[in-house]
């Protein structure tokens, strides 16, 4: 919301973007910092980068702590470099809830590609921000994409909704599991199963691999069986969810490379088969020894090809943009709402009034959102209003943030 940028900010952004496009690593690093810090003018910065994005294959890697993600990412980066691709890595680590500080340790495992500036690794802290992390990560990926990286890998612990949201911004999602820990199966139950395109059974030299493979296969089988009736779009619950609502808005924007504007959220003749025709692959690796890495790259390549050839890539890109738009609007709305809360005396005061029985939380919420609702009512058609309130989240967020 700070985007009444001064001319000097615009100048600085222009120079920074020019240097980035020129291949200066330091400019890229600085752009990511400014994006991460949500520095003044960062929106303008991202807008300037946008025309140069869209070429990188974005791969999300997630899994429980200790599954071997960082080692795997290191070896993957080396494999991509071997065939001449340039690589960007965004590694997200949690922040301490007490000090807000963090120790970002993903670089410790980075060994195979050291001294090679064509692998650009950036560690990112969750910084205690709730919704903003996936925005910052997505924007950092855009920066690496604009810089010209062929492959961008986003690595995060698959520990919560936040992290799931992050990997969802990738084209291809790899879920890393290791044998011998019941936790992994638990984690998969907790919703990561639905978003994996490729499952990596790492540490495949350990006991219990066969059992884990069997469990995985069974779960994936069940996911296939359950998928279509639930969402209608098979594997990607998110695709189903956001496409349903994202469809109408995305009609107006014609996607690049899309000859016919799609009247339907699903552009393909046979919607049922299309998006669900990717069977998640299971690959076994021993990342420390570099075993199975080629298979893994092959599986990611196959998924990239599938996205391109089936039209599912367009679908995914659109739902990703839809999610991005929705997220940004929500963040902006939150800023407005926070200002309104402050204007009405601050959340502490309001809470105290509720405590003393003076009012109730619903009445307070209505009073705060009321002015905005009035504006929307005055300007828009009732249909648009339906759409705005349909995304239930804006109503929820102020409460949880405040």
């Amino acid at each position, binding site marked *: 919301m700070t985007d009444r940028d001064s001319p000097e900010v615009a100048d600085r952004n222009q120079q920074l973007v020019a240097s980035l496009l020129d291949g200066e690593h*330091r400019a890229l*690093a600085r752009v990511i910092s400014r994006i991460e810090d949500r520095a003044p003018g960062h929106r303008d910065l991202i807008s300037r980068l946008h025309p140069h994005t869209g070429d990188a294959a974005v791969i999300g890697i997630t899994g429980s702590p200790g599954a071997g993600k960082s080692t795997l990412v290191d070896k993957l980066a080396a494999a991509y470099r071997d065939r001449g691709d340039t690589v960007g890595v965004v590694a997200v680590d949690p*922040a301490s809830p007490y000090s807000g500080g963090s120790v970002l340790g993903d670089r410790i495992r980075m060994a195979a590609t050291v*001294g090679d*500036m064509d692998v650009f690794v950036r560690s990112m802290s969750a*910084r205690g921000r709730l919704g903003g992390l996936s925005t910052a990560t997505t924007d950092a990926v855009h920066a690496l994409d604009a810089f010209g990286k062929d492959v961008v890998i986003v690595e995060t612990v698959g520990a919560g909704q936040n992290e799931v949201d992050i990997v969802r911004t990738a084209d291809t999602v790899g879920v890393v599991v290791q044998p011998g820990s019941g936790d992994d199966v638990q984690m998969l139950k907790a919703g990561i199963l639905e978003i994996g395109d490729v499952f990596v059974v790492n540490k495949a030299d350990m006991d219990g691999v066969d059992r884990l493979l069997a469990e995985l296969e069974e779960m994936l089988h069940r996911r296939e069986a359950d998928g279509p009736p639930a969402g209608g779009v098979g594997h990607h619950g998110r695709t189903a969810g956001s496409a349903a609502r994202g469809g109408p808005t995305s009609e107006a924007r014609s996607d690049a490379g899309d000859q016919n504007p799609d009247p339907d959220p699903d552009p393909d003749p046979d919607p049922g088969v299309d998006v669900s025709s990717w069977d998640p692959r299971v690959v076994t690796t021993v990342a420390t020894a570099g075993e199975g890495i080629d298979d893994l790259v092959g599986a990611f390549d196959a998924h990239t090809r599938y996205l391109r050839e089936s039209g599912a890539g367009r679908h995914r890109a659109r739902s990703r943009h839809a999610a991005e738009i929705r997220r940004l609007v929500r963040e902006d709305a939150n800023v407005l709402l926070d200002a309104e809360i402050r204007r009405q005396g601050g959340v502490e005061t309001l809470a105290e009034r509720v405590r003393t029985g003076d009012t109730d939380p619903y009445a307070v919420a209505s009073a705060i959102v009321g002015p905005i609702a009035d504006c929307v009512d005055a300007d828009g058609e009732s249909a648009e209003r339906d759409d705005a309130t349909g995304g239930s989240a804006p109503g929820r967020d102020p409460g949880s943030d405040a």
Partner: protein
Amino acid sequence: MSADTGRDRNRPIRCLIAKVGLDGHDRGAHVIARAFRDAGFEVVYSGLHRAPEEIVQAAVQEDVDVLGISILSGAHNTLVPKVVEGLEEYGAFSETVLIVGGIIPEEDRDRLREMGVAAIFGPGTPMQETIDFVRENAPIRADDPA
């Protein structure tokens, strides 16, 4: 907004704690990394046995405010200059505060300072002293959020 610990800044201080060369003693680096984290800094830890070029690569890519090099091997006179040179090559030196921790003999200290090392913290330095130094000296950038 986000956790803010610096005095005049609206973003966390980013540090790289680096072990350089053939030096396997990382207890000190770990302790410092944790203390910095608890002070609210974002700390990237390099891991052991890094070459100077790797440290430079990490410092540039991570866009850190502070680079802390831990050396207990006695090779500081050869390793530190290489890091300084590398940072200069990428135009990152002027905006990075370089500090060194570990066993640095008194007679070597002036030379390191002339090279651009902002501070040297030997054994027994109170943690708070190092933290305060970083807080006070981490560069404010022209484009920092107000």
